[in-house]
């Protein structure tokens, strides 16, 4: 079953790339050239590799967030809003509160998680108390989060003068790897002779990726090996049976949403402390949460699967961003490819039919020999 699932994902990716190639060639672009640009854009230089990892990091976390909720039978469309709130609160803590290094980022991250957890927990509470569908509430909360974040950023004292963004977080809250060392005299002298490392460290490489992987493992462990995880999955599989078995369904709905929200909030916090260092005014959703839904689906809602799925996603997006400047092909072909991948993943039956045709042919051959 597991192997089958893996095959389905691989075939879906293949179909996605084929459809992408067709879409590109209809518009007059050479698909082989385009995919070449993308591959070079991801693996061509050490700094491209680190950018791909940086791009994938928040997607691992929003992906795990959505996957975790899915396992409990909840659809967390609100990862986007939880991400926004997480980044806002992490920026606030990172700028206004003065703490020593190491402690500062930990506090900022925990604050971001807590904010995301409360934001999502509210949707969970509305579902368990009033029976309101979490799809509606989380959609609404996404927009409320966006405007609330903008409101805060526009506030005097937090807004950076002459810029549509907040102040930058203090250096002590940064989670960049060797951030200070990179720009110090010693660091510069060392990196001068080491091309690979210099290239790799050039982008804002940060501890976020490690945090994301550890968290994905933790969530896998919680779901698989703890009582809490067992209860949550039981609620997801059959609410009524779980209730009959003595599990408090309402409480579990809130807990599940809070954990999912904490993960998306963590994604936002990590993005701020590691990459953007600020909260910008948002004209529209950035899509980290929605991309997280696709990541989770590609991963078959498995927390561990979210790691490769997010890397694939981040690679496609970062590699795809090179298309427009080099061969002039619109970047949106990437969204089409991702959509097609998810589309085929939705249809395991089709892929089973395709593989069974292959088997049948093999069977016929055997028959002929006889």
């Amino acid at each position, binding site marked *: 079953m597991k192997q089958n699932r893996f095959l389905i994902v691989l075939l879906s990716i293949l179909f996605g790339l084929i459809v992408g190639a067709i879409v590109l060639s209809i518009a007059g672009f050479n698909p082989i050239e385009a995919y070449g640009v993308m591959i070079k854009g991801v693996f061509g230089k050490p700094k491209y590799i680190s950018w791909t990892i940086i791009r994938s990091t928040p997607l691992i976390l929003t992906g795990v967030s959505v996957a975790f909720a899915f396992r409990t039978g909840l659809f967390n469309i609100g990862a986007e809003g939880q991400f926004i709130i997480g980044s806002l609160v992490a920026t606030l803590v990172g700028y206004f509160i003065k703490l020593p290094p190491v402690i500062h980022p930990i506090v900022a991250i925990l604050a971001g998680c807590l904010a995301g957890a409360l934001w999502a927990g509210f949707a969970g509470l509305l579902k368990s108390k009033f029976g309101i569908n979490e799809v509606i509430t989380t959609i609404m909360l996404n927009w409320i989060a966006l405007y609330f974040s903008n409101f805060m950023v526009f506030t005097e004292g937090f807004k950076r003068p002459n810029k549509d963004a907040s102040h930058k977080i203090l250096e002590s809250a940064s989670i960049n790897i060797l951030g200070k060392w990179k720009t110090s005299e010693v660091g510069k002298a060392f990196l001068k002779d080491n091309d690979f490392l210099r290239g790799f460290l050039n982008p804002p490489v940060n501890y976020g990726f490690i945090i994301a992987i550890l968290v994905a493992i933790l969530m896998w462990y919680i779901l698989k090996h703890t009582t809490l995880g067992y209860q949550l999955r039981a609620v997801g599989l059959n609410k009524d049976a779980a209730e009959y078995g003595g599990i408090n369904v309402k409480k579990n709905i809130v807990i599940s949403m809070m954990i999912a929200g904490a993960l998306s909030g963590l994604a936002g916090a990590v993005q701020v402390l590691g990459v953007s260092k600020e909260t910008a005014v948002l004209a529209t959703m950035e899509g980290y949460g929605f991309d997280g839904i696709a990541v989770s689906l590609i991963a078959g809602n498995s927390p561990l699967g979210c790691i490769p799925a997010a890397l694939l996603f981040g690679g496609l997006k970062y590699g795809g961003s090179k298309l427009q400047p080099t061969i002039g092909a619109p970047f*949106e072909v990437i969204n089409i490819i991702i959509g097609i991948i998810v*589309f085929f993943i939705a249809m395991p039956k089709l892929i089973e039919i395709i593989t069974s045709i292959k088997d049948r042919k093999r069977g016929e051959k055997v028959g002929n020999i006889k």
Partner: protein
Amino acid sequence: MEILNDIGIIIGISLMYAAPLMFTSLGGVISENAGVVNIGLEGMMTMGAFAGAAAAYFSGNPWIGFIVAGLAGGALALLHAVACVTFTADHVVSGIAMNFIGPGLALYLCKIFFDGAAMTLPLDLNHKIPRPLNNILPPDSFLNSVLNQYATVYIAFILVFLVWFLLYKTKLGLRIRSVGEHPRAAETLGVNVYKMKYLAVILSGVFAGFGGAALSTAVVSNYRASLVSGQGFIALAAMIFGNWKPQGAMWGCLLFGAAQGLVVYLGGTSLKVSSQILAMIPYVITIIVLMVFVGEASGPAANGLPYEKNQG
């Protein structure tokens, strides 16, 4: 009189904002009554918004744009139907795929047809959807503020009635609903379940496409990447809010439109409130209304369940 005029303006803006949502929401109603969850409305609406604006621009006729928008939305919905009906896909997963493919394809095509621009060229005022009652009612009057609307607003309300009539007063509607409630029972009575589901899903895409065009050729005069941004999801929420019924979905959209109208109106007054706080109001109101008035919502019994023939 002043107050009456202001109320008229608010109602007018509300109707204008509600109309695109109503089309899309009705699409959701039809599809989900046939048992196919359509979370891809957002993508279909975006396809419609682009196709409508582009076709209206190139043909110079907004109605051609409107129809092309419906066809584009319907084409995307056909994909959704193939996945959900024929290949028993998970409806939510397929819908999410639609939300990547629709906006992706719309912007991709836009950049190809409009020299790399992320928006279509704006329509002339007389190439937009017309206002049938323009210059008929006295200007600056209450009636003019309320009734001088783009034709799409009127069509949206007519469509609410038509969908209600179709679903509850015709044999076809009964079949569609039976397929959503209990497909196996419907099948034994000779209803072609797959055909009904295909019909309903494609119609939902057509309506969502109309909704997109109602935005891009009436409310504004071109398509751009940020135009739809989430309105398909709002329409989806309005449908759940309206308990999967056409008239309920209409009220949901009107509530949201009214909140939006209030925001636009307040933004124009001398009231000193942050525009960001104002922008939150429609979403906050929706949540509060749900808390106060609507309890547990439940859709058609077999909504979202894949259906396979001949399962013993």
